[in-house]
């Protein structure tokens, strides 16, 4: 049919469809009286309406991995049968069960020892032979696990048909949740059992092994001399069945989902997170604890309700489950059975869970792994506190809360401190090395967030930063080859220099710590960025520029590189170029605190963009000062005064300066505040505050001080050639002879940079 003809068909068909079926015939007779072919076509399509199923094309295709065996697509498992012998050693006795991964068989091993084992056959086609290879690589570390709560995995092999299998200790037990319910264990007894299982997980973590798929079905309870003993199975299997994903293979090797929804951590539910660490097990333990206490999973669905996987994953990543006590309380239908299985009345149970146990469980289930218990033993320690009626760390108020907050803010310091304490407590060297591996992984994951929080609080209180420094100094003394500790030390020294009283001395120490870090690991982006930054504030623009542009070249997609490059360019006075880098950094990482970008837009008189770059940092002292600076330039004086009041008495914050400046009756006080601020700016190592305070002085009419500060900033290579011409705060200064001199000095400063840069590029 031609397109034109089809349009005709459509037009009439559409009209016919609006009519009742009985009217259609008459309509068509009239509409296509002479064109029989047209009428037949329309009638045919109209009659099609009767046999179109309502759902035809209404439901989008569904991805569906395991239901597709209905058309015989999935091959049946290669014939495994009772009596069959694998690898001439394992005689299959009976099938124990079948799960997502494959079948589990009870088997008898004949040589070299005679024992009963469990054989887990990985479903055909799910994994290739490399499973076995990866397992062999892990074997060494699995072998050193020796803990009563961990069932051993003995070996891995491949059947004649190429099907991989694992041989492990046979544990004739019940899943922990079923066992507890069957035996009607009380809450305290359940906690005791849970603690012993968690100890096993802790042991594995000390050997640098992460389970990744902890769930009640993998923690079986057997009775030994009448006492329940938990045994964790499948340790090391998840690791072996997931290939290592390198950054480059992102698109070719797809992140596979290992874990069980409900017990899986939010980071496992996120295909972008590649560095699963020990805290994933802490989350799963939290989910198991939840079930033991409340009788259902944190993200339980109603009976009969089936959540699509993406919805489940979304909830896992975004929603907070109700606390265990709320869960018990909210479901009247099940609460009496749940309570009975715990030897209590529903109201008693709710009371028992409310408070400490709720908090402990929810802390283990934090979405942000940095806010969870760092290790299973921390979780266990808090449960012990509960059992001993001591205040638990998870308590969200009072002193413990503040400590928790501190730990959250200064995570790196704390985790390294934990290592130091353990080391001092006399851990063997081997364990120290294993621990270091774990800590190292964790530190890396923390970096991003840590950098966001890093400065805000130091302005108010420098001592946590100083504590972190002394802990890190001890850490590098114990292990001078650990690059991330040097890196963090370098950052911490800088904060002390820039935001406390560390001054030039700390800046120098920052340099040398960072150089140590980079010598050990040249790929530490933060360290390289910090080095360029240190050079910038000192006015060593050429070497800073070389470092920053190298960063951008090596990691073009990393926002920090662009940010630091923008930093150098801002000091060099090239505000447009700097603005481009800031915009790029923001686009690459919209959640990154790029607040000092605010300076250059402020200098360009672009208030809105300047404000945008402190938006993420809202509430901090830095943002309050910056906002006041911006408002001052807009002539919004009342608002500027309001904003500056939120800052501290630190003269660099310019609080008194701006307040007295805006009050015409306070000329004497203004003069004093100006002197103080000038002295403070000149005492610091960084040239930018000199420019900043200088512009405020210029605005307030303190001309001499302004000129001195601006001059000193330019001398130390805060070139500011553009800024001198665009910055609205300098209006009063512009007509003066001194300003001309400043401008030519600034131009010289900028030219010097430009020349050196073009020389370097040739």
């Amino acid at each position, binding site marked *: 049919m031609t397109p034109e003809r089809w349009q005709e068909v459509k037009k009439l068909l559409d009209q016919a469809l609006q009519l009742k079926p009985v009217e259609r015939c008459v309509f068509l007779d009239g509409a296509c009286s002479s064109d029989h072919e047209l009428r037949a076509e329309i009638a045919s399509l109209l009659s099609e309406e009767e046999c179109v199923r309502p759902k035809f094309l209404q439901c989008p295709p569904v991805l569906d991995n395991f239901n597709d065996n209905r058309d015989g697509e999935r091959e049946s498992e290669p014939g495994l049968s009772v009596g069959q012998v694998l690898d001439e050693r394992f005689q299959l006795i009976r099938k124990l069960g079948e799960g997502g991964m494959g079948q589990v068989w009870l088997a008898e091993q004949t040589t070299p020892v005679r024992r009963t084992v469990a054989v887990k056959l990985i479903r055909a086609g799910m994994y290739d032979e490399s499973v076995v290879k990866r397992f062999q690589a892990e074997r060494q570390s699995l072998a050193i696990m020796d803990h009563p709560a961990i069932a051993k995995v003995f070996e891995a092999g491949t059947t004649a048909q190429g099907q991989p299998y694992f041989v492990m200790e046979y544990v004739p037990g019940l899943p922990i949740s079923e066992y507890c319910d069957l035996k009607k264990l009380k809450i305290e007894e359940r906690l005791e059992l849970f603690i012993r299982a968690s100890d096993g997980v802790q042991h594995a973590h000390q050997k640098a092994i992460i389970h990744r798929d902890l769930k009640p079905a993998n923690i079986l309870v057997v009775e030994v001399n009448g006492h329940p003993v938990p045994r964790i199975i499948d340790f090391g299997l998840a690791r072996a069945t997931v290939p290592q994903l390198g950054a480059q293979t992102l698109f070719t090797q797809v992140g596979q989902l290992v874990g069980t929804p409900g017990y899986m951590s939010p980071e496992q539910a996120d295909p972008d997170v590649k560095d699963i660490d020990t805290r994933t097990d802490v989350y799963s333990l939290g989910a198991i604890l939840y079930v033991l206490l409340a009788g259902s999973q944190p993200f339980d669905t109603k009976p009969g309700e089936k959540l699509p996987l993406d919805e489940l994953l979304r909830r896992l990543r975004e929603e907070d489950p109700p606390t265990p006590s709320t869960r018990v309380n909210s479901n009247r239908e099940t609460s009496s059975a749940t309570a009975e299985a715990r030897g209590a009345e529903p109201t008693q149970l709710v009371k028992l869970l409310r408070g400490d146990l709720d908090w402990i469980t929810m802390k283990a289930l934090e979405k942000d792994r940095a806010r969870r218990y760092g290790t299973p033993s921390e979780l266990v320690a808090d449960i012990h506190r509960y059992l001993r009626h001591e205040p638990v760390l998870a308590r969200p108020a009072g002193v413990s809360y503040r400590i928790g907050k501190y730990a959250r803010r200064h995570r790196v310091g704390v985790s390294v401190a934990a290592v130091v304490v353990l080391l001092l407590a006399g851990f063997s060297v081997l364990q120290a090395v294993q621990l270091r591996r774990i800590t190292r992984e964790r530190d890396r994951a923390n970096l991003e967030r840590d950098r966001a929080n890093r400065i805000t609080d130091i302005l108010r209180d420098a001592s946590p930063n100083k504590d972190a420094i002394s802990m890190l100094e001890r850490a590098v003394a114990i292990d001078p080859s650990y690059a991330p500790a040097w890196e963090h030390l370098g950052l911490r020294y800088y904060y002390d220099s820039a935001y406390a009283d560390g001054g030039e001395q700390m800046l120098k120490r920052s340099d040398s710590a960072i150089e140590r870090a980079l010598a050990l690991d040249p790929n530490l982006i933060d360290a390289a960025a910090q080095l360029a930054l240190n050079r910038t504030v000192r006015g060593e623009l050429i070497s800073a520029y070389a470092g920053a542009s190298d960063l951008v070249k090596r990691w073009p997609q990393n926002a920090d590189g662009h940010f630091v490059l923008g930093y150098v360019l801002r000091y060099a006075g090239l505000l447009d170029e700097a603005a481009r880098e800031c915009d*790029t950094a923001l686009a690459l990482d919209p959640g990154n605190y790029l607040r000092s970008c605010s300076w250059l837009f402020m200098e360009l008189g672009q208030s809105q963009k300047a404000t945008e770059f402190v938006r993420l940092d809202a509430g901090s002292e830095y943002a309050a000062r910056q906002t006041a600076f911006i408002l001052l330039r807009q002539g919004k004086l009342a608002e500027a005064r309001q904003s500056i009041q939120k800052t501290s008495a630190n003269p660099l914050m310019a609080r008194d300066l701006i307040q007295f400046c805006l009050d015409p009756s306070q000329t004497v006080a203004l003069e004093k505040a100006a002197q103080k601020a000038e002295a403070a700016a000149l005492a610091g190592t960084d040239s930018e505050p000199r420019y900043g305070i200088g512009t405020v002085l210029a605005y307030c009419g303190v001309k001499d001080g302004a000129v001195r500060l601006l001059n000193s900033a330019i001398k130390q290579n805060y070139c500011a050639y553009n800024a001198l011409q665009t910055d609205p705060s300098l209006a009063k200064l512009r007509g003066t002879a001194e300003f001309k001199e400043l401008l030519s000095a600034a131009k010289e400063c900028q030219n010097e940079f430009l020349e050196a840069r073009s020389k370097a590029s040739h």
Partner: protein
Amino acid sequence: MAIVGASSPSVTQLLIRWNQGDEQALRDLVPIVYQELRRLAHYHLRSERPEHTLQTTAIVHEAYVRLVRGQPIEVLNRTHFFALASRLMRQVLVDYARSRNAAKRDGGCRVSLTNVLEIPFTIDEDLLALDRALNELACMDERQARIVELKFFGGLSSSAAASELGVSRATVDREWAIARLWLHRHMRKSA
């Protein structure tokens, strides 16, 4: 010493350029979006959970969220993204269905893991028949075929499809109703 622009342009930038008529931007976009759809489909499939299913349209949306990453994007460019992604999603599914059929013809051996997407899916319709019917419909009426693609493979609502195509929502609904009839007849006859 090149500084700015050394990095590859973002998906947002490519969408904007494509919208401005830059054909190369489209050529650059296709592999990125296609890869992301495959990656997500594959990722979700590895879930091992028979009780959970995932609509392919959810993947299109997730791909959008991931690729655009919260950057400001105009409505126009967003619908362009969905238009492109729905076409590529169709491609992903058809590729798979073809390979599966080919494998069946070759004596039913399993589809090789290395060269095929390995994206099993359930679809109430015969996908290959639908694909052929859609191609034929597109010869007569390109826009109508696009509407089916957007709604069925891209999971777009009628109003989203309408804004993508620059027509009214009522038009989309009318065209959709007629397209269903025509496709149904075509697929029934060729079955």
